[in-house]
């Protein structure tokens, strides 16, 4: 089938402002949107620029706006978006070139929530025990691939770029609810800050955007409830 693909282009070193290029490509309905981009890049316009790696939704490189929704280009099929598609970079981060945005601020926010297990007790010879029930409490938030689809779909983030954002909070949740971690209080202090979890307005865009199906808004609500209960 033939698809028409309208792509937002911008190279800050040569272009005064962003513009759209329109391409037509012959693809299969079962092809991924990433295959459409590759077909264009390889056989028509080598200057088209985007990130990609695994091509099956686990590395998180190719999050972008496809027909107005944040998706991974490798995890959405042509038949699901139709024969006309508009592709733009994620919103809220500086565009480096075409669909590539500056991810540094995103990873800085991730690092800010101390996204690692903290347990200062001497480790046992074998594993630390954890019941399947305790393990289940944070299962959903271990799935995060740091693609930024959630954070860049979040209206409070658009209006306040200092908001730590849903992706960082998902990763805070992953450790706050891990029975092996001992520093929930440190993280709680960080995320109950002015630009922390209370900026969330439960718009649910993040949950809709997550390509891993994480219940992002729910995770943030669990964090909020925990902050409140721990304070009480």
């Amino acid at each position, binding site marked *: 089938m033939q698809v028409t693909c309208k792509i937002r282009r911008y190279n800050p070193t040569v272009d005064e402002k962003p513009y759209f290029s329109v391409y037509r490509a012959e693809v299969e309905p079962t092809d991924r949107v990433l295959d459409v981009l590759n077909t264009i890049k390889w056989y028509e316009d080598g200057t088209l620029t985007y990130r990609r790696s695994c091509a099956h939704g686990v590395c998180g490189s190719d999050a972008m706006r496809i027909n107005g929704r944040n998706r991974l280009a490798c995890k959405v099929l042509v038949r699901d978006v139709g024969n006309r598609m508009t592709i733009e970079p994620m919103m809220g981060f500086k565009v480096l*070139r075409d669909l590539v945005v500056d991810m540094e601020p995103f990873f800085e926010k991730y690092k800010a929530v101390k996204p690692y297990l903290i347990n200062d007790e001497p480790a046992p010879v074998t594993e630390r025990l954890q019941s399947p029930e305790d393990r289940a409490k944070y299962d959903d938030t271990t799935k995060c691939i740091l693609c930024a689809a959630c954070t860049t779909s979040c209206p409070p983030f658009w209006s306040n770029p200092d908001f730590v954002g849903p992706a960082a909070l998902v990763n805070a949740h992953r450790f706050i609810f891990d029975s092996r971690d001992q520093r929930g209080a440190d993280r709680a202090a960080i995320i109950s800050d002015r630009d922390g979890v209370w900026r969330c307005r439960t718009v649910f865009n993040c949950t809709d955007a997550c390509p891993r199906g994480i219940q992002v808004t729910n995770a943030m609500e669990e964090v909020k409830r925990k902050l409140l209960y721990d304070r009480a």
Partner: protein
Amino acid sequence: MYHRFDAIVVGAGGAGLMAALQLAQHPGIRTAVISKLYPSRSHTGAAQGGIGAALGNHEEDHPEWHTFDTVKGGDYLVDQDAAEVMCREAVESVYELEHFGLPFSRTPEGKIDQRRFGGHTRNFGEAPVRRSCFAADRTGHMILQTLYQQCIKHEVDFYSEYQLLDLIVNDGVCCGIVALNIKDGEVHIFHAKAILFATGGFGRAWKITSNALSNTGDGVMIAARHGVPLEDMEMYQFHPTGVYKLGILLTEGARGEGGILRNDSGERFTERYAPTLLDLAPRDMVSRFIYQEVKEGRGIKGKDYVHLDLTHLGADVVENKLPDLADFVRVYLGIDPVRELIPIQPTAHYAMGGIPTDIDGRVVLNAEEDVMPGFYAAGECACVSVHGANRLGTNSLVDIVVFGRRAGKHMARHIQEVDFTELPPKPDAFSREQLGQLLSRESGESAAEIRQHLQEEMMDKVSVLRTEDKLKAAQKTVAQLKQAYTRVAIQDRQTWYNSELLETMELGYLLDISEITIAGALVRKESRGAHYRDDYPSRDDANFLKHTLVYGTPDGLMVRYKPVKITKFEPKERKY
């Protein structure tokens, strides 16, 4: 731009991060990790089914049984001293990952859960054993995330989106690398005392592959350019269960949980080939069984695929133990794996061969194991050799954590013992010329067409079933494509985030790797592990119980051999 560090790690997958974490334990040692991707994008994250370690959480198990399975699984081309080290240290490495925070799935008692996997057995082959430690079916993702998290905790320096361009060697001593900052096109020189390549595999040489688009063997070929031989490159694994036509990996854990392979008549055909382990025979064998079924007309509707059947497992097992697999099948095939059969075909998956190293990750240059001082390799780009002619499922994750760790520890010792070697004059001259040529050639061949032709040729003639005629034809094609590549031209002339430039350089590495793979496959006139020759269908220990070493020389490729290290397990016929 010039940088000076004590240690440089190239690649931010499991092996690279594990090494970086070891180096980070030493406050005096300055380490930088360079990667063409952000660390969390590395292909370790795509590993699914588990990491093998004889914890014995469900049933009796021993590192020695694991070693035996690894040696037999590798069709006795495994260096047994290295396999012993790996299987012994697998146990402490898995506990260390757990202490780092890795969220393993748990048994009812709260221990790390374990499941069956292909070729892993109790008591030297009696029956399958539960050895694969897993976190649902995203174990690699969890390992990658956990190691990256620990690197953040230990404030490791990352240079993300820097493309490796060259290794710097001065008078036989490795003393740095050249890299391109992808974002602005600037060339950087990193001067160091120890350099680790953990640059991963090269599945993108084949049309159907489970590998990321980034898996193009850059590090492997850059090492070869500096006189390092490549070991056992003909040993390339095809994983039996890739999504039909797409190649996306569907974990062996699916068969570990009881999944069954069926042909067009619905028959469980593994019963005819491997009566003891059935669907859990090692990957090289199961891939061959599938090719055989297809060849004899028993592929589904006579085509080149068979079915993976999970319908008898029930929704609970599929959704909870194999959630990512279920998601892949639904998204890419529009199929419900709980109720429908999944079309699968073997997919190019893993390089057993690569840069030869000793058990401390030091790169060795010949059969005498002379090292190149300062140069290390670990993970899929390296060949220790613990996988021999065929890697067992779960052993790639074991390999990266055990040998990434050992390499990191050895580098730390080396750094404390030696001074910086001076850089040779103009160490970036080669890279600048290479970039300049690609950026200035006005017109020429299309990289996309060369790549497509290469991938089709490798899939057709250098995959699961090989013959002299097919290999020679492929050799000729690759030579022609290499010629065409000398005239390749790109459209994008920008230095700013030029991904077309990078893809074109990666194609150059894939062409060279294909040439070497074919050379190794032609000289190995026997069938062993993943290397199956229709014209030499038996294993030939008298002539080929040895590793191939292929060197690039100005006069073309040169093949040499290296003995296999045998300690406890004498080669026997391989039956399952």
